[in-house]
């Protein structure tokens, strides 16, 4: 969705890959959790928290003008959302009955398949290393949206309280 923006920022080529699963930076995690809490407290849409780490990273010229650097921006934010996602699924599973848990698992499997297809399509479409940052951003954005969807089932259980996605 931010295809044109990211394309416009690409300055050189590097090796593309699906986002690397790395440990979230505590500062990045804190930025996202604070954004989620602030949005919830103010009645704002939490969607605005998606991109809050990767977009400034891309736009503040912290990428050294390389696609690898740009991928890092998406990977950094993906690490936070992915961690939150894993926790959200675990917590939700623990609250559901067995029938609902099976539905949750099936839903999550379908989402994972869709995520892989959607993000890898950047590679299929561009057929070049410039797809790397787009894939990283796609993984991060979609995982963020997934967390927000699942948070809707958890948000009166203090999921974010005292936790920062570490």
């Amino acid at each position, binding site marked *: *969705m931010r295809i*044109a923006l990211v394309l416009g920022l690409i300055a050189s080529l590097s090796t593309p890959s699906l986002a690397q699963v790395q440990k979230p930076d505590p500062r990045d995690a804190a930025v996202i959790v604070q954004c989620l809490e602030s949005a919830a407290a103010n009645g704002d849409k939490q969607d605005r928290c998606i991109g809050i780490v990767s977009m400034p990273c891309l736009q503040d010229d912290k990428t050294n003008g390389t696609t690898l650097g740009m991928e890092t921006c998406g990977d950094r934010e993906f690490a936070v959302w992915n961690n939150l996602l894993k926790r959200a699924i675990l917590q939700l599973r623990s609250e559901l009955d067995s029938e*609902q848990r099976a539905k949750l698992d099936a*839903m999550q499997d379908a989402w994972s398949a*869709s995520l892989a*297809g959607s993000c890898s*399509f950047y590679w299929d479409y561009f057929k070049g290393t410039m797809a790397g940052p787009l894939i990283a951003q796609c993984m991060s954005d979609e995982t963020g949206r997934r967390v927000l969807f699942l948070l*809707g*089932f958890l948000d009166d259980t203090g999921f974010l309280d005292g936790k920062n996605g570490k």
Partner: protein
Amino acid sequence: MVRPGVVILALCVSAPALAQDKPDAKDSAAIEQCVTAKTGRHWAWEQCIGLISEKCSAHEERMSPADVIACYAREQAVWDDILNKSYRALMNALEDDQKTKLRGMQRAWIASRDKNCEFLYDYFQGSMANPMMAACQSRATGLQALYLRGFADDVAGRK
């Protein structure tokens, strides 16, 4: 147990099976205008999702579930139209292997969207789930429409 937060989130979010066949021309124009305005360095197409439905269902508490569902169906019709046009434009421009990937991706997305939105019913297990499912379907369709639109615009720009 009904959690208000879930209702708010789900209604802020968005489904295609309920969509009306043809979008209202004014609704389509409003969405197009929004997409154009949100293009550029501060890319924010996602902010156009909910443009029609949120205004239409602003007084949801005083509306019947059917009327709320109609609001989401109204917006979904616009997104369905954008999605279908973008998909067709891509199919017409891509190579055979890319078409296969696109088709597979779209099928995976449909399966995921249906399971996501049905989960709202599985979770709430009541009639209040219906407007939430409509909202879920509309939002999901909007996101996918914009995703495909990004590629379709790129294809158009290459001509």
